[in-house]
């Protein structure tokens, strides 16, 4: 599982590549922790390379959303595949995230 965080066009972008299952959840969260400190910018999580996600991964997404929303940031999810989308839909996460 690969996490890359960079700034693009005034937005914080996190690029995820690989399978976000429970075994890598902890380290993935650690890698994405800079996003917790973002203020006044939009966050885009690029999931084009994300092949798989389980509930542990969803937990990370939710944390990011809840913490940065308080600071006034929008969180966008970019380019999720069908399987990942299915998981988002089943859990209702598709209603609380914005997709681009």
């Amino acid at each position, binding site marked *: 599982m690969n996490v890359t965080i960079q700034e693009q066009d005034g937005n914080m972008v996190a690029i995820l590549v690989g*399978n976000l*299952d*429970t*075994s890598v*959840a902890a380290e993935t969260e650690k890698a994405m922790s800079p996003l917790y400190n973002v203020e006044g910018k939009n966050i885009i999580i690029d999931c084009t390379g994300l092949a*798989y*996600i*389980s*509930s*542990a991964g*969803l*937990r990370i997404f*939710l944390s990011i*959303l*809840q913490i940065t*929303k308080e600071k006034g940031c929008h969180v966008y999810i970019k380019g999720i595949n*069908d*399987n990942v989308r*299915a*998981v988002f839909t*089943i*859990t*209702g996460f598709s*209603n*609380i995230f914005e997709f681009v």
Partner: protein
Amino acid sequence: MKKIIAYIRRKLSVRVSLWVVFFAAVIFNVALGFLFYQARDAVYQEAVSRAMQILDKTSLRVEGILNRVEVASNMTKWLVQRHPDKPDSIFVYSRGMLANNPDFYNCSIAFEPYYFKDRGLYFSAYTKHVADTLRTIQGGSDHYQYFYSDWYLMPQLLERPCWTEPYMDLDVATNTSEMVTSYCQAIKNHEGKMIGVINVSLSISWLSQTISATKPYPHSYSIMIGRGGTYFVHPDTTKITRQTIFTQTMEQPDTALTALGHAMQRGEEGMKHMELNGVDCYVFYKPLGQTGCSMAIVCPESDIFGGFDRLRNSVRAIVFIGLLLMLYLFIRIITRELQPLRQLADEAETIASGQFDATLPDFRRVDEIGQLSHSFGNMQQSLVKYIEELKNTTAQKASIESDLRIASDIQMGMLPKQFPTKADRDDVVLYASLTPAKEVGGDLFDFYFRDEKLFFCIGDVSGKGVPASLFMAVTRSTFRTVSAHESMPDRIVTTMNRTIADMNKTHMFVTLFVGVLDLPTGRMYYCNAGHDAPLLVGAGVGVLTCDANIPVGFLPSWKYTLQEAHIFTGTTILLFTDGLTEAMDGANNQFQMERVNEVAARALTDQQQGPHELIGRMTEAVHEFVGDAEQSDDLTMMAIQYIRQQSDVRMRKSIVLPNDTKEVPRLNAFVSDICEDLGFDPNVAADVKVAVEEAVVNVMKYAYPPGKPGDVTIEAASNDIRVKFTIIDSGKPFDPTVQAPVDTTLSATERTIGGLGIHIMRQNMDSINYERMDNLNVLTLRKKIVKAEN
């Protein structure tokens, strides 16, 4: 006649008037009767007195005359005795007698034979009234040898003067005869030797006239009889001298007449009331001096009482007419007085026809009619008021009834109506029916599927009607709520019991049977709380053994027991309430368990033990038994038939992992391979992967105490239809299927992370099934194989 009686019954005026007239008539009768009785008596006394007076007067008169005769005879005798040898003087004396006594009939002074030698054998100076003159002749001759006459012989024989019996005196010269009676006495010379007889006669008819002169009553008559009873005076002249008073008694014995005759002969005086010739008479009789005759005045009763009777009849007629008049008048008067009642009756009819507001006539009277009218008015007002109340009550009742119907619909709506058939499921067939006794009842049944288990229950609330139905609703919703978190029937029932007992203020209770049938294996866990043990219809007909727990709602602290049984494929579990066994026919006989067994056995024989057929047959049998009798209790039945065929297992693989999430990739690879082998559609395979990961991760995180290593076994098996993953661990008991469902509609800020895993498992897999077996948590996830479309 009947019409008259009916008329009288109908008319008060007629009845009252009849009563009044009746009593008046009675009083009149009594009073007048008494009066008439007394008056009659007075009249009677008066008549008697009058008759007696007349009788006395007549008697005196007659006796006076007789006396005169005797005195005259004595005087003449004295004269003759003084001058016994002057025959011519005798004629003078004889003549003188008659001249001085015009009412004497004749006088004969007759001497012994040849007493006057120069006059011959016979010498009788006979004088008689003829027209206005007297005729004096010598009466003796060969044709009339007076020596042998009674009047000549009797004084000699009796040696005293006497009156003769009446006899016929023949007047030769005129050839007339007259009935006479004579007073004759012997003439004696100074030596005491009889020389002749003086005979003074009285005409009987003259006597009769004298006697009959005074008639006390118009139709009364006098009679006179002689010593022998011969009639000498009688209105019927043919009887005179020819009949005696006893003559007619010879033909027809008449004791009264005979007695009268004897009494008169004996010289008695008195009064007899008797019937003479068919006429009621009073006979007053008295002897005539010394003549030996007796006279009687016969007064017909009709004469005496005639006037009185007429008076009495007149009075009676007057009273009768008066009473009739009274009857008529009273009827009229009373009818008029009752007129107001008729008016009231008419008004009552109007009210009765529905016009409650009709105004009653106001009579302005204070008597009974006025009071009645007043009371009537009160009654009318009350009627109006009560009818209003009744309308309201009826409306309320209709409203309640309509509410009850709605409640019934709601209650029926609470019960499951869709029953899985063979077409819907391949593991179980179910059917149930509930017929409440009233609109709403206390029986309940429920079932639902959760995670490859069939949760079902059947119950019976104590009582019927609305209270029971409310309790039933509470019980059912409690069942649903509790069994969402508990899979074990004993725990379900225990929790339900605590909950319900805590809020049970009315001391109702419900018998309950809760079962959980594990559909893959056919293992049934169950708990019976005082309910009828179900029947198992499979190889035969048998009763499921049940512990005797108490019904639910009683005792919050009761610990319910868990039982288990294995249900073989094809067996039908028949659950019912006591409405089945206690269904009553018209003679209060109960259906009873024996009949239930019979019907079930017959159904089994006929291969009709499927739930729908079995319940159908049982219902039919009950209806036949009960007949027309009213349904006494709710009738509820539920039948569950386990039909799962175990299909052959094609593949079995397993993997054991330590409880470290680092092993997840290995797990995922395991799952991926299996799915690929089975030809799963990739997207479906992805769902399966996520689900299995969540399940296993749960175990890894929570099954064992933190830091403690443990194993997780993942078994995979498949047949032609589906694949199943079984996750087994030996950690603490943990049933993921009872966790609270996740609310996926919450907003971002409201969402929590908890429960997501199980949610995903449920959503992605066809069924999840948890069992705790032999200290192991066994979680089975099943998915129907969905092949990739090529």
